[in-house]
Structure formats: C-alpha cells, structure tokens
C-alpha cells in the first residue's frame, strides 16, 4: 500500500532505507525504538494535503517530524507509522516590516529565524539550547519555552498566524497576523502545543521583537537551594531580568567534564543562579548582589566582561542537557506557581532523597518560570529497561506532589509518549474529555500522531 507514496511525492522525497527510518523515526528521547515504515519529505502545503487525505482514506498513521529535539517522545514513530519530515519546507517566504511579521514554513530552523530577525535589526526572542536544530513547526506544536521565558514568554506569544492541514485534510488559515481579531474561537492557540495530534502546522507568521539592549550575565553561588528563590525575588524587585536559571553543582561538574571548562567561581558551591539583565541595570544588579551576600544567600559571583564571556557563562547552563545525555537521564520537567515553589521544593527534595537514594540526581531549570528539570541519572551498572521501569514507578509520587500544588507534569517538554499515562495528574477527566472531543472533530480518522498526548 505504501507504494502509493511514490506517486504522491517526487523522486527522492520518500525513503524506506533502514538508516533513514532509524534517524527520522525518533527524537532526543532515548526510551523508544524507532520503527516507522517510511519517511516522506513534502515540499509544499498541497503535498501535505494530498498525503493526509490519502492516509485518512487508508487509515495510515502519520507522525510529524521537525528538528526531533523533543524529550517526551512526541516525534517518535515506533508502530510502523509514516514520518512526515518538514526538513524541506524550510523557506522564510515573507517579511512585513510595518507588522514585524515573518512568514516561515514549518521546517525553518529556530536559529535561522533568529538570524533572519537579527539581519532586520530585530530579534526572535524565544531561545533554547537546541535552537540550532529545532524547527519552528515543532516549537509551535510543543509551545516551546526555553531560557528567556521570564522576559519574552513562550513560543505561543510570538505566533501571529498559522496555516494548518487538519486531520481531515483541510487547510485552515488561523489568524493571519492580526493583533486584534474578535471573531470567535482562536483556533491558532488550539494548535499551539497540540503535538501534531490535531493537524500539521505547515506555515506560521511569527511576530518579531525589537533588538534587545546589550546584556550582562552574572553567575551567583548559592549554598542553599531555598535561597535561590530569595535571590530571585530580590532581583525581580529591582530589575527586569532577561533570564533567571539555576543549576546544581552536579550538573556543573558534568558540563565542566564534557566541555573541558573551568569552574566559574573560585570555590565550588552547591547551587548556582545564572541571571541576564540589561547592561544599563548593572549598578542595580550589583546592589542586589551585595544585599544577597549580606543576607547570607550568596557567597560569590562572577560578571561577564564581554559578550564572549557572556556566551561562555551561558554554556555552563545550556550544555547541561547534552553533558548528561550519556548517563541516560530520566527527565522530569515540572512546574508550579512561583509562590508555591518553596513548599514544593522541600516536598520534592525529601521525596527524591527517599525514593532515589542510590541514583545520582541532577537539578537545573528555569526557576524564574516555576519550572524545574529534575534529572535522574542511570547508574552505569544498571540495565536501561530496569532503570526506566524503576523511574516509572517513582514518577507518580513526584507527580502527586505536583498535583497537590496544581502544577504541571510537563512544563515545556510536552506530553508525547513519555508523560501520556500521567496526564491525569495535571488535567481533569472533564478536560481530557473535551480534548478527546476536539481530536475527534479535527482528526476524524485518528491518523494524526496517534498514541501521543491522549
């Protein structure tokens, strides 16, 4: 039946080679084995429409594929699905300066959009460690967050319009760049974060921001976990932060070993906060630092003296994910409201100490957004499947603590396959019922990334 794909696509745009299936069949999630039946590379919206209609009438499951940097298995094809890669729909087709709007196809790499914005004297301010590989379509489908959320918000905040091919093969043009549009349901926001389960995002109009003023980076040493929140509120009371990240010394140790870097501070400290702010707020930031030292929260800090150094300091945070990857980390990506953070941190820390006494635990995250990345590293001697099984047993206990604070079991990684069975910790049966109803309307044949999210 899959021979029909060769008629739908031009030569070289369909592959069934084993290497390609393994490559395009999975994302950065290491728990699943790739097993798609084919990979296709559409070059136009009309090819996507033809594919979805064909798949609908033949009941063939489709998995959308962007930069495949996801961490929840949202882009994993492990049941003979056809992978739809947007690698070749990667054009930036229009720029409207008066609206600060860029029209780009789904496969545009995030860093290329950022670069394009910079060339126009503007910026695309959503940024993450994987922006050199991730694609804008995937960013939207997962409502990606990243390291500048505290100031610039999530991907959702910059989506001004979407063109989507729904599961029934219809083209939906959702809000075409308008700032104001009070004409009923904003379907655009329904597709943001939908993980490809309702339709495929094929084109997006992204709003650009003004170019940011020169920035400074400060890395502070914070001996006690709870004091990181004190530092955050002291900083936020007096200056506008572009980023507030934290990481534990275990995470730093992995980065230093992996990238051969020096320690930022002269002595090692249990936790670090990395903050970024406008250069002209330096005096305020220094005053807050002094206050933090006087209060006993902070023992030392370094300050970037150039953009080059700012980049080097950022590496300490951005390289964590890559540096711990060889240790087969089990990733938790959880969030609560900032006000609930202190109690939540205590509860999770006790739980982790009790449940994972024999595992190395790596903490880091966007604490300014209430978002923690709790990574459990696999002991070298332990079998991978046994390790995941054990983590899966403990996860409900972590998620229960999240649920008690009305938090989210997936702050920014999405639900995908990895968190699907735990959705009930963050969404009520009534909500999940509505989600299923929406899926039924937009994906009547159940072919759009089936098994993910719901």
């Amino acid at each position: 039946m899959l021979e029909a794909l060769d008629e739908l696509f031009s030569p070289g745009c369909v592959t069934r080679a084993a290497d390609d299936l393994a490559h395009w069949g999975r994302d950065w999630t290491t728990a699943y084995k790739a097993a798609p039946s084919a990979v296709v590379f559409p070059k136009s919206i009309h090819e996507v429409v033809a594919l979805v209609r064909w798949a609908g009438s033949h009941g063939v499951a489709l998995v959308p594929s962007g930069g495949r940097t996801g961490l929840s298995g949202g882009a994993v094809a492990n049941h003979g699905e056809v992978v739809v890669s947007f690698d070749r729909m990667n054009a930036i087709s229009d720029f409207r300066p008066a609206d600060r709007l860029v029209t780009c196809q789904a496969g545009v790499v995030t860093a290329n959009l950022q670069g394009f914005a910079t060339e126009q004297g503007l910026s695309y301010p959503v940024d993450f460690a994987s922006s050199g590989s991730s694609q804008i379509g995937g960013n939207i489908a997962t409502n990606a967050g990243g390291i500048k959320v505290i100031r610039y918000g999530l991907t959702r905040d910059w989506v001004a319009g979407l063109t989507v091919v729904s599961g029934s093969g219809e083209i939906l043009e959702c809000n075409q760049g308008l700032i104001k549009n009070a004409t009923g349901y904003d379907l655009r926001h329904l597709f943001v974060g939908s993980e490809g389960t309702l339709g495929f995002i094929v084109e997006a109009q992204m709003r650009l921001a003004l170019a940011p003023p020169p920035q400074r980076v400060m890395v502070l040493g914070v001996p006690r976990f709870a004091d990181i929140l004190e530092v955050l509120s002291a900083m936020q009371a007096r200056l506008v932060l572009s980023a507030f990240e934290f990481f534990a010394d275990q995470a730093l140790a992995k980065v230093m070993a992996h990238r051969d870097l020096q320690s930022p501070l002269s002595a090692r400290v249990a936790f670090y906060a990395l903050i970024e702010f406008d250069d002209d707020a330096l005096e305020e930031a220094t005053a807050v630092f002094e206050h933090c030292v006087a209060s006993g929260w902070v023992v030392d800090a370094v300050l970037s003296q150039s953009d080059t150094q700012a980049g080097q300091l950022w590496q300490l945070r951005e390289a964590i994910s890559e540096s711990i990857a060889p240790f087969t980390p089990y990733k938790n990506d959880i969030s609560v409201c900032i006000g609930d953070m202190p109690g939540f941190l205590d509860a999770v820390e006790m739980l982790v100490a009790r449940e994972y006494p024999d595992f190395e635990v790596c903490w880091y995250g966007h604490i300014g957004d209430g978002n923690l990345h709790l990574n459990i590293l696999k002991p070298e001697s332990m079998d991978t499947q046994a390790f995941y099984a054990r983590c899966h047993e403990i996860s409900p206990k972590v998620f229960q603590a999240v649920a008690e604070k009305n938090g989210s079991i997936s702050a920014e990684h999405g639900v995908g396959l990895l968190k699907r069975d735990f959705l009930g910790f963050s969404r009520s049966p009534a909500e999940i019922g509505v989600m299923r109803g929406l899926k039924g309307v937009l994906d009547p044949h159940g072919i759009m990334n089936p098994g993910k999210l719901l």
Partner: protein
Amino acid sequence: MKVMVPVKRVVDANVKVRVKPDNTGVDLTNVKMAVNPFCEIAIEEAVRLTEAGLATEVVAVAVGTSACQEQLRTCLALGADRAVLIETDEDVQPLGIAKALKALQDKENADIVIFGKQSIDGDNSQTGQMFAALAGMPQGTFASEVTPEDGKLKVTREIDGGLQTISVSLPAVITTDLRLNEPRYASLPNIMKAKKKPLDTMSAADLGVDVAPTVEVVSVEPPEERQAGVKVETVDELVDKLRNEAKVIT
C-alpha cells in the same frame, strides 16, 4: 618583582563587525568593546605570578581614549594592583604605543612586561616586539609556558610546526599565545574592590612622546561573500563539476 601588562580596548570578539560604507574602517558606533583576548591572557599570567609569590605588583596599562578606563577596571578586577591610562585621542598604532610604553617603563622599571601576542582588531603583532627593541629588553614571543628559573624566565614558544624553549634574562618582554592559560572570570567582590584601586591618567605629552600615526589606512574591504554551495544528485555529476567547473581534477 614588578610586572607591567599593556592591554588594548578592542571590539568584542563576539561582535560581527561591519565595514563603513566609505571603506575607511570598521563601524564602531554602538559596538560592544572588551579587553583584547590575548591581553586577558597576559593579565591572567601576571596575576598567577603574584599568586605564586613570584611577583609583588601588577600594573595594567592602556594607551588610548578615556573609554579605555573601562577595560583597565576589568584588569583591576581580575587582579592587577593598579592601572595607568596614557590618554590620547590619536588613532594610535603599534609604534606610537610602543614609544609611550617605553617612556612609562623608564619610570616604572618593571621586571617583566607581558603583552598579548597581537590584538584581534589590528592583527599587527608588532607592539611587544617594537617595545622590546626600544627598551633594549630580550623577548619571549608567542609564549605557551613561562617559568621563572634562577632569576631568568624559561619561555616555551609556539613556533611553526613545534615548540621552542628559550631562556631570557630580566627585565624581559613576553607576548602570550592562546594556550598560555585560561583567564578567570571577574568576580563581583573583586569588581567592587577594583573601584577603589588606583587608576592614574597621564597624557602622551606628559611623557614627552609623539604618538601620531605614521601609517595611513587607505581602504578597508570586507571579505568577498562566499557563493552558496549546490547539492548534486549523482556521483557522476559531482565528478563532472570537479573536472569542468572547479577544475580540481583532470
């Protein structure tokens, strides 16, 4: 033992520079400036000599506009004890800088003068050598290792295709290569202490030196833009292009 470290204020290495439309130079409006990376290595080496108990004083020096104070403060935060700005609004060049530094050295009598091997803006790699000649001091250039030994300096130099080890008597000039050390970050407590460290300003005229440029820049051109690559469909097509277009095989 006193160590003098001349440092240069240059465009931040992370900045993508643009050539001015009239091709007279690089556009510096609103461009972030920083300590020349090789000079950072020089400061780090001097501070390490102090920490090892081998040097007693580190003096950072800049020749340029009053804006250079910013970079001198960075050097003070990194561990220099005091700083001197030889202030001039001239477009200073290696020879003028070397003359000004020589005049200062006559007062300071530093035992070691550590330069960066070159600045990332001018790429001249001349100032350290010119200074050594004017001051009549031996020089260990492109150093990747410096060890004080019996009142001399053992210097490992990075030369084409290998390393050369030399010994120079003091006072001596060193210029730093990339591998000499990895500079530390400036800590906040040290940045605050640096505000109270002495930073003296004098003019080139105070030193009786003429730093007027002797070389005139005629034109600055950006590198030619590279043509985008093309993807070929087959090996035959590749071979054909290599033979007939690129003409790299026959």
